[in-house]
């Protein structure tokens, strides 16, 4: 198995992770594509024998963080945040994406980034706490408290709080 075919094998999961981090499916695929490009450039840094999926989750998260920062910078510099959200999007795509946004999409997007990534890795990707904490580079205790707070927020947003 080559590096590329190993990547191809986990690509469906990577797309799912990207979608759960992103505002909508189109942004998710853009993120996934950017993460693949970065991984291919950094392939020498991958240690064969270690888990490619964890390595890819880490890369995707870094791309996501970098892009989030540049989006925020652009929004602060050029326009109010709300206007910034629409800059650079084709009208059609935006409308389509909004129509397709479900309650879960909206609730996930409303979470702080640090909670969203923890929820995405554990609830969506099914990683163990230890695996997720490794990907995020945080202690287990920090992960579990983010999972607790993130879930509390999701329950509120989805109207499922008891």
């Amino acid at each position: 198995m080559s590096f590329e075919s190993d990547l191809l094998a986990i690509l469906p999961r990577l797309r799912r992770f990207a979608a759960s981090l992103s505002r909508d499916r189109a942004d998710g695929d853009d993120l996934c594509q950017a993460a693949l490009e970065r991984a291919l450039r950094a392939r020498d840094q991958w240690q064969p024998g270690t888990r490619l999926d964890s390595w890819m989750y880490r890369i995707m998260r870094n791309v996501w963080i970098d892009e989030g920062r540049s989006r925020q910078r652009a929004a602060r510099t050029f326009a109010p945040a709300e206007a910034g959200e629409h800059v650079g999007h084709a009208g059609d795509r935006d409308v389509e994406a909004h129509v397709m946004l479900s309650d879960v999409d909206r609730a996930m997007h409303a979470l702080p980034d640090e909670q969203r990534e923890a929820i995405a890795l554990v609830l969506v990707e099914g990683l163990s706490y230890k695996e997720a904490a490794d990907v995020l580079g945080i202690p287990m205790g920090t992960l579990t408290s983010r999972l607790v707070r993130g879930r509390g927020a999701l329950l509120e947003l989805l109207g499922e709080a008891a």
Partner: protein
Amino acid sequence: MTDIDEAMLIAWVDGELDEVTGRRLERAVAEDPALAERLEMHRRLRARVADHYAPIEAEPVPPAMRALLNDSGKVVPIARPVAPRWRSWTLGGAIAASLVLGLGIGRLSNNPAGPIAVHDGVMVAQGQLASILDTQLASAQGDAPVRIGLSFQRKGGGWCRSFEGQALSGVACRNGGSWQVQQLVPGAGPTTGYRQASSADERITATIDALIDGSPADAGEEAAAKAKGWR
């Protein structure tokens, strides 16, 4: 309810509670309907979030991502990666036609072993074309499917060879361990007659003129260069 209790319920739903704590939790839940309701709520939430994103995994991978992975592999069909650059190529439409043909063949057979690969953004001969460039002497090539035109030293050093085939003709220069393709034009097409070396495409002749240092290798020089691995 304290935060730790909530964390325990959640850990149970996530399959992260150790056995002893798990049994303790199950006993507590059995005795406390409110706690049972909270546990059920967390189980529903996990299922709802997971189910929402689960279908993505079953979808076919978008062609752009698949292409990205294919392109970065060791062996790549020529046409797709260079297609966007056609317009900037001075030789224009004729090359485009040959590349489209190459793409079609590559797709039909799903066989990446065409004559050209793209490594790190440059075209490199592979497969039969590479071995012909490695081994075939212009002075002794009989009915070979691809004929070597000239072997020559380029300005600045290094060997180059022109080649002519039915599908593709061009010029390749030795770079490291491979033949970097400098120029590619459509080949002569299916012909039955014997082709003279002098029948080379004018465009190839122009490329050779631009590259060549001195005069082409004669049979002895060519054989010696081959023996040294074109170094």
